[in-house]
């Protein structure tokens, strides 16, 4: 209905292969970015920025990471939490050993560390698939978790055994640490997530994305058209872990401001996995949808009763969340195995062919 595609013709493959070939979509994107970068910072209060948007963005990035691996390359991983952890701890070590380097740089660099770890634990993926691989990644999860607890060097021997985020500034503005305002942190997170999402979409729309999907859909055929399976899978692990790593680093440095190992426990892995299941495997936008639903739902659950003045124990809300998320997952798999992203597409299609039913 809102789509007016008449007159949008493509005279070049470049235009035809654009990620957003339809004008209205491009407009929509610009609007969203405008809201995200300009409107929200202006209107958003501390709660919105700090308790909703920042974590939402961070989890979205983690979800994108996992989606690249599981949704695009078809490699099931339960180690997301740990890979995020690697990022966080790497970042801590980096910024404490070389404080003068800008923290944002370190956050990104720490991604490379988790990428390396990811590749290491991805090695078995040549021989094994599906659940077997999931177990392999579980090994990574638990081993790394153990390291986070048992290797004091990682958390700079802090007595609490927790990461304590130091104050870091960029051009005088505190970015991390207690004095950093939610707004600055939000903007940093937003910028990083935006750029990395753009990279991700470039990847999946090009040769590499096709290689991943080929391996996912039919690895034998993939091999036959000259795709080196191990390389491709390891690349997926590397990129995915990089994203998770950065997300992890941001989680601690730009949101919690300090964290213990259990932040990166296996539950975290599951949570991110749910995000991409519900959001939609093999779609980037799905990663955002999933993150929104899984992360913001609990907040809503706590908010709604409060709004109606019903007192509800946080514990109960917690448990309700579990129940609802559980039901949601099953319901989604039953109703729309392809997740929210699919629903989104269907709706979009309906709008495009409106008023016709087909």
């Amino acid at each position: 209905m809102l789509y007016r595609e008449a007159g949008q013709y493509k005279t070049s493959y470049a235009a035809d292969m654009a990620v957003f070939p339809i004008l209205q979509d491009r407009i929509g994107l610009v609007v969203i970015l405008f809201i995200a970068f300009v409107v929200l910072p202006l209107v958003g209060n501390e709660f919105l920025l700090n308790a909703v948007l920042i974590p939402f963005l961070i989890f979205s990035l983690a979800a994108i990471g996992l989606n690249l691996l599981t949704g695009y390359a078809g490699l099931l991983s339960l180690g997301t939490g740990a890979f995020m952890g690697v990022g966080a701890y790497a970042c801590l070590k980096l910024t404490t050993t070389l404080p003068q380097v800008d923290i944002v740089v370190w956050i990104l660099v720490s991604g490379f560390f988790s990428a390396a770890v990811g590749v290491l634990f991805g090695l078995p993926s040549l021989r094994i698939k599906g659940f077997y691989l999931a177990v392999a990644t579980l090994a990574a999860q638990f081993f790394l978790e153990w390291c986070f607890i048992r290797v004091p060097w990682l958390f700079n021997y802090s007595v609490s055994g927790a990461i304590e985020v130091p104050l870091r500034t960029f051009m005088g503005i505190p970015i991390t640490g207690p004095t950093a305002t939610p707004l600055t942190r939000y903007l940093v997170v937003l910028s990083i997530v935006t750029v990395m999402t753009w990279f991700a979409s470039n990847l999946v729309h090009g040769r590499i994305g096709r290689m991943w999907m080929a391996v996912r859909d039919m690895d034998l055929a993939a091999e036959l058209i000259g795709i080196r399976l191990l390389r491709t899978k390891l690349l997926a692990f590397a990129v995915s872990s990089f994203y998770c790593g950065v997300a992890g680093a941001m989680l601690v440095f730009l949101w919690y401001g300090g964290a213990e190992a259990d932040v990166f426990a296996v539950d975290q892995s599951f949570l991110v996995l749910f995000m991409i299941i519900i959001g939609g495997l093999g779609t980037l936008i799905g990663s955002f949808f999933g993150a929104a639903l899984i992360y913001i739902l609990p907040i809503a659950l706590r908010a709604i009763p409060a709004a109606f003045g019903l007192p509800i124990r946080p514990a109960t809300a917690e448990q309700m969340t579990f129940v609802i998320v559980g039901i949601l997952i099953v319901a989604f798999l039953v109703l729309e195995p392809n997740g929210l992203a699919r629903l989104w597409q269907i709706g979009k299609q309906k709008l495009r062919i409106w008023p016709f039913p087909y």
Partner: protein
Amino acid sequence: MDILHKIFIEPFLQMGTAPDLLVQTLWDGLVSGVLYSLIALGFVLIFKASGVFNFAQGIMVVFAALTLVGLHEHGVPAFVALGLTVLVMFALAFGVERLMLRPLVNQSSIILFMATFGLTYLLIGLGQLVFGGDPKVMIAKDLYLPSGAIEYKGLGGFVSLQKIDIAAVIIASLMVAVLAVFFQRTRIGRALRAVADSHQAALSVGISLEQIWVIVWFAAGIVALTTGIMWGARSEVSFSLQIIALKALPVLILGGFTSIPGAIVGGLIIGIGEKLGEFYWGPLLGGGIESWLAYVIALGFLIFRPQGLFGEKLIERI
């Protein structure tokens, strides 16, 4: 040099010098191994029959135990509670088949796997809502489970065997025996085995897939209940168990997803392996390696023998 010595010599010297500790460790390993096997058994049952990789097996253990204890707390006599719990597990199996498996039939196995994630969350939430999240004590006494320990002197020291552990081992073996008989002798059992090979075969035996699913999930539920009771009696009934239950995964890797003997042997290997590792080598790494040793062992297997100990070699036909 020194480190090599620490790794390859010292532990064995210890074993030699203190055989009682060795035996003790082995025993402990055996017991936890048995419990791993039980959980793995639950996985295998369901996987064999419905090809579903039931991630929820672990939580089912907790849920069963919790229900039992919870009911008793509300004044229900122990054995009545036990009976009711069995019913609950049946209801669960039934519900799962109706609301989850049936709608998802013909979906790819990964989807079904994900669905069991959902189930897991649902059960966690439900369990906590109904019975509260805090740990509970298993009602061992009311179920006439033995307590206390047998102390066995000798081996230049003494080994203490918890009676409950002995009971656990016995009951576990009994259950395995029963299941074996069930599979070998009974008509349903054969049907189940048939399903594992081909669904048509099962239908030819005259049992609908739906029924079979209910049955296996129920069976898995019972196994879970037993596991829950035993484990609960040894330590306590808490949700942390659900993480421990993940240990069943390495067990399955070793044993193979479809082999019951595999599950048992695998369970024992993992159980004993990680206890030995923890006791003798753990200190080198600052302890706590129990949490991942099992997985790393499994990983090793995955790379060198993907099909597991008993699993049959899978050839890719084009």
